[in-house]
């Protein structure tokens, strides 16, 4: 039993938390901007490598690199929106989806040009897990889950309590009426990208912290993150968190019954089943 928890459940929850951070961003973009953002994974890669730059070049502690990476990635996300997506707003959404694929390739190439294609890591050496009544947890694993929960709670508070958070919900709920109410949609879009960029960086950072940094790390997370967002119900923040955890745990548990090469196929299977059986997701999101 403890082996099951230590070898499958704990890694599953950690991986799930990383997916959740990305899935929350995907669900926000879906809900407010109404397109699938395919550069999401590569934005996470960029965030992870920016944190690496902060750690190796400036010499800040590993955990201090996270907020810096989040802020810079948020800026990059806003910049990408202004440079590319903003011009396509009036066009059919599929045009923006395809443009985001282009942005994904650009970001990945940029990362490869700057940091190369070899695997990197934030720290050298092995980190030992501590024993909590038989359950072995590493500090970074606890940090991953705790920061994910903290960021999601902060986001929920922002959306429920503040004027601009409510404006984001209004834009997601009924964009035409939001405009008629005088809500400035450009500001809401900018705010959305700031949040989404920050969340992307956090998911990339924690993936890098728990495994290693590779230029394809984010791209490979894209499918599980989308599966998590759709599983939870598009537009549902708490749904994206649940979806992320389910996909992460399912991927780790699948190794028990399937060869480990099929791990990545789990997300795809969940996505397909969900779209066939319950396209609104677990928590009744929007139907795309």
């Amino acid at each position: 039993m403890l082996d099951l928890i230590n070898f499958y459940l704990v890694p599953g929850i950690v991986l799930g938390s990383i997916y959740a951070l990305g899935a929350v961003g995907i669900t926000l973009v879906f809900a407010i901007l109404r397109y699938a953002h395919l550069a999401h994974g590569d934005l996470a890669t960029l965030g992870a490598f920016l944190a690496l730059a902060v750690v190796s070049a400036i010499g800040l502690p590993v955990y201090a690199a996270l907020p810096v990476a989040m802020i810079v990635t948020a800026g990059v996300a806003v910049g990408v929106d202004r440079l590319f997506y903003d011009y396509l707003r009036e066009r059919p959404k599929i045009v923006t989806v395809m443009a985001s694929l282009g942005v994904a390739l650009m970001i990945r190439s940029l990362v490869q040009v700057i940091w190369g294609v070899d695997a990197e890591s934030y720290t050298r050496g092995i980190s030992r897990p501590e024993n909590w009544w038989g359950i072995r947890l590493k500090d970074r694993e606890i940090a991953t889950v705790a920061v994910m929960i903290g960021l999601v709670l902060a986001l929920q508070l922002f959306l429920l309590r503040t004027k601009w958070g409510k404006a984001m919900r209004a834009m997601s709920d009924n964009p035409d009426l939001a405009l008629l109410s005088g809500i400035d949609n450009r500001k809401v879009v900018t705010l959305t990208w700031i949040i989404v960029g920050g969340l992307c960086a956090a998911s990339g950072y924690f993936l890098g912290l728990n495994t290693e940094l590779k230029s394809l790390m984010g791209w490979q997370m894209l499918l599980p993150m989308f599966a998590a967002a759709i599983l939870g119900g598009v537009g549902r923040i708490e749904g994206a968190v649940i979806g992320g955890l389910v996909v992460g745990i399912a991927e780790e548990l699948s190794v028990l019954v399937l060869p480990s090469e099929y791990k990545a196929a789990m997300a795809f299977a969940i996505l397909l089943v969900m779209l066939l059986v319950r396209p609104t997701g677990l928590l009744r999101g929007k139907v795309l």
Partner: protein
Amino acid sequence: MSALLAMDKVRGGYGDADILLGVSLVVAPREIVVIVGPNGAGKSTAMKAVFGLLKVRGGSILVEGRDITGLATNRIVEAGVCYVPQVDNVFREMTVHENLEMGAFLRKGDLSAAYDRVYALFPDLKERQKALAGNLSGGQRQMVAMGRALMLEPKILLLDEPTAGLSPKYMEQIFQICRDVRDSGVAILLVEQHAKQALAFADRGYVLAQGANRHEGTGAELLADREVAEMFLGG
């Protein structure tokens, strides 16, 4: 009579074809004006033209003498014009109170007077402040929609078929609320399917047909007009 809203020979449409072929109307302060006419006459389109939701290719739209033709939607809202669409006119996944708050998005400072005013007009809503707008009945939802628009304290309120799909009881209630709103100092321009009832309660009316003015006058005049009765009111 100084006009609050004046449309003069407005032409325009959504795509290349014009739906409005010359619509003129005037709304004075503290007045309820109704637009009636057969389906496809361009009633709702005329209202959307005020709000810049379609391409206006001719004529002018003035609010208090200021030309608002072609302005961005949020500028028109700032000019004191609020619009309640016929459908999808509430934020369904937000509470009644949040709907009102979004209506006042452009306002700064203390909103408690504005909330009090709206809740005084719609006591039903006060009881259901925390309810999600999407869970309300059609009539209550219409009240949320009107309340949201009133939060900005507009000079004129545009209502697109506020009684569509409502029971006669609610219809009378919505009309009564319109009178209360008018008496509180806000002019109202509304589009109505229920032409007879609407003309009976409005101060003045315009009959549109095929995208242009056909008749105008006080509600009573139009109701008495034989041609209007035969053409648009079903005898």
